């Protein structure tokens, strides 16, 4: 387990830097950037769902809260971009905490519906407060981020910046996976009443993990707003929440690499089949179906199996 994960981190760093030096094409770089965005969000959902058993179909909302906080504050109030990331993260944490408090008492499909409903409410707010959010047509003119005096204004600079963030995030994930906390979560998922009898404050642990992942989602959302320079509610709709759910499931729930692998596959694959035009949806759906049917542990399970022949874990 440890060895494969370390290998994964090394592979990630090597891949990202080799890719940068070999491929100058901005389109390919942008695809990798989108993969990383989806990967972080899917990994966060993976922690919620795969580790703690909290099914959430409203993750796009927290991503959106970050993006819109940054968008609104930089466009209308000209607030320092870095500060907006922190404000977005804070708002998201507080909202998640308040919403999570009653919501996380629910289970199964009821929890799924409650989070989905929350996502819908936030989506409608983005749409309806047209004066500050720009409504369905979107918000233009979001400021760019600058670090050490360098303005991050093109694909290449953002690629470097975001790769560093992504590797950092992956290391955090790895640390989390090895921590006592992740076992605690898995224990709760296995049996809530058993973990209660071991003295774990189940509702508090769940609430903290929900609020923390939501906070991270908002940070990534802010970065997304800086990257695109334009946001509209479409990017934070129910469809994105469901996409994330599918990415996490296909990648492999409860596996640290699952979110990233699922995101990579489902972001790159549609680009490959875009020449099939009308049949794209059918092909995409079929791929999902095949993976779910025949690779029960997701892609990460498949890769682990393949690697297992060479690397003793």
């Amino acid at each position: 387990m440890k060895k494969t994960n370390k290998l994964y981190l090394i592979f990630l760093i090597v891949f990202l830097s080799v890719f940068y030096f070999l491929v100058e094409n901005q389109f390919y770089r942008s695809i990798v950037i989108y993969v990383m965005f989806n990967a972080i969000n899917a990994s966060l959902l993976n922690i919620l769902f795969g580790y703690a058993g909290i099914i959430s179909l409203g993750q796009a909302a927290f991503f959106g809260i970050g993006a819109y906080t940054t968008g609104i504050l930089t466009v209308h109030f000209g607030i320092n971009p870095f500060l907006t990331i922190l404000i977005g993260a804070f708002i998201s944490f507080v909202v998640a905490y308040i919403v999570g408090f009653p919501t996380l008492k629910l289970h199964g499909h009821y929890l799924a519906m409650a989070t989905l409903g929350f996502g819908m409410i936030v989506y409608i707010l983005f749409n309806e407060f047209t004066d500050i959010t720009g409504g369905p047509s979107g918000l233009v003119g979001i400021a760019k981020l600058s670090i050490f005096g360098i303005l991050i204004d093109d694909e290449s600079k953002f690629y470097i910046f975001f790769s560093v963030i992504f590797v950092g995030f992956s290391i955090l994930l790895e640390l989390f996976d090895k921590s006592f906390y992740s076992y605690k979560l898995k224990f709760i998922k296995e049996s809530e009443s058993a973990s209660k009898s071991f003295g774990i404050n189940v509702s508090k642990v769940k609430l903290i993990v929900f609020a923390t992942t939501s906070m991270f989602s908002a940070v990534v959302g802010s970065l997304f707003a800086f990257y695109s320079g334009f946001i509209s509610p479409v990017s934070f709709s129910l469809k994105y929440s469901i996409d994330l759910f599918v990415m996490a499931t296909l990648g492999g729930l409860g596996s640290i690499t699952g979110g990233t692998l699922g995101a990579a596959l489902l972001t790159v694959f549609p680009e490959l089949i875009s020449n099939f035009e009308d049949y794209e949806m059918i092909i995409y759906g079929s791929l999902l179906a095949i993976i779910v049917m025949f690779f029960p542990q997701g892609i990460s399970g498949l890769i682990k199996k393949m690697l297992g022949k060479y690397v003793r874990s």
Partner: protein
Amino acid sequence: MKKMLLILSSLIFLGGYAYAEINLGAIFSVTGPASYLGLPEKQTLEMLVDEYNKAGGFKGEKINLIVYDDKGEDAEARKKFLRLAQNDKVITVIGPTRTGPSLAIKDEAQKNSIPLISCAASKVIVHPVNKFIFKTPQSDELAVEKIYEYLQKNKNKKVAIITSQDGFGDTGRNALLAEAKNYGIEIISDERFKDTDKDMTSQLSKIASKSPDAIICWGIGPAPAIVAKNYKQLNIKAPLFMSHGVASKKFLELAGSAAEGMYLPAGRLTVVDKLSDKDKYKPILMDYKKKFESTYNQPVSSFGGYAYDAFMLFKLALEKGGKDKEKIAEALENIKNYVGSTGTFNMSKDDHNGLGKESFLMIRVKNNDWEIVE
């Protein structure tokens, strides 16, 4: 994994790359909620490019058209634009279909110095003016002014609006609210509906209770047809106005008898067979209509007309400016008096749309067909 990536990237690379041709890119919402708009645009463009190539192309060089689907999503449009710019090396991009995706790629178009001729209506796309960004549809303001002028003439002052909660309805609503003052019109009710809603009698009864002089519905797709049906069901007396978004045979088919007596501003394409022979637009429109309907065996839509104009503008600019992207943008900006399917385009430094109010006609539904009012 690496081997797979290699194969994957070569697959992307193979998609639609050719030498010694003029690469023209296009992004339309061919799937997703706006796909009924995106498809006729794509079909129109394919038809025109085909025709142009058969006629010899540009100085013997053929145009290679590459169309991608943005699914109506911002991020997709952005990816597809970068793909067109970086992989397919296009010299101009036509589309996207909707406002959001158009705005999402505005910055990229400028960064890559690629002229963009959008087929979305919002004024924000070309205001503030950007050297490389153009659009062919009339701004919603023009349609609103047309309706308001008509209301003003009939001394209707109190107006209720009901708009859809998508990009189209939203830009329409903004225009309706902003222009009202200029025409001495008071908006007494401002209701909304979702384009997936199935019954709007709740909003309409609320409107009816305020007894307006006229009701204006701004939306696109099947929902406005439901509004028309519910309006008839509630037996509201105030006249119903709709946007140019419903100016299609499809709408008449959906709404049926409920559409009877309804007013709307529409481009000439919708009523082409009723135009007088003296109308300067008639020959072009008839030509487009005939070609489209014989090629695809389905009625022409005004949204296809936006793509028609976009291609014609591109053609003019190409013939004048050559294959250089900057020169195409310059040539586009200087197009004057081009008679297109939507109206007469007079581009300038401050106006990258170039259409005037005359591009709309006021029409009415009579016997399940259109009738020109003025």
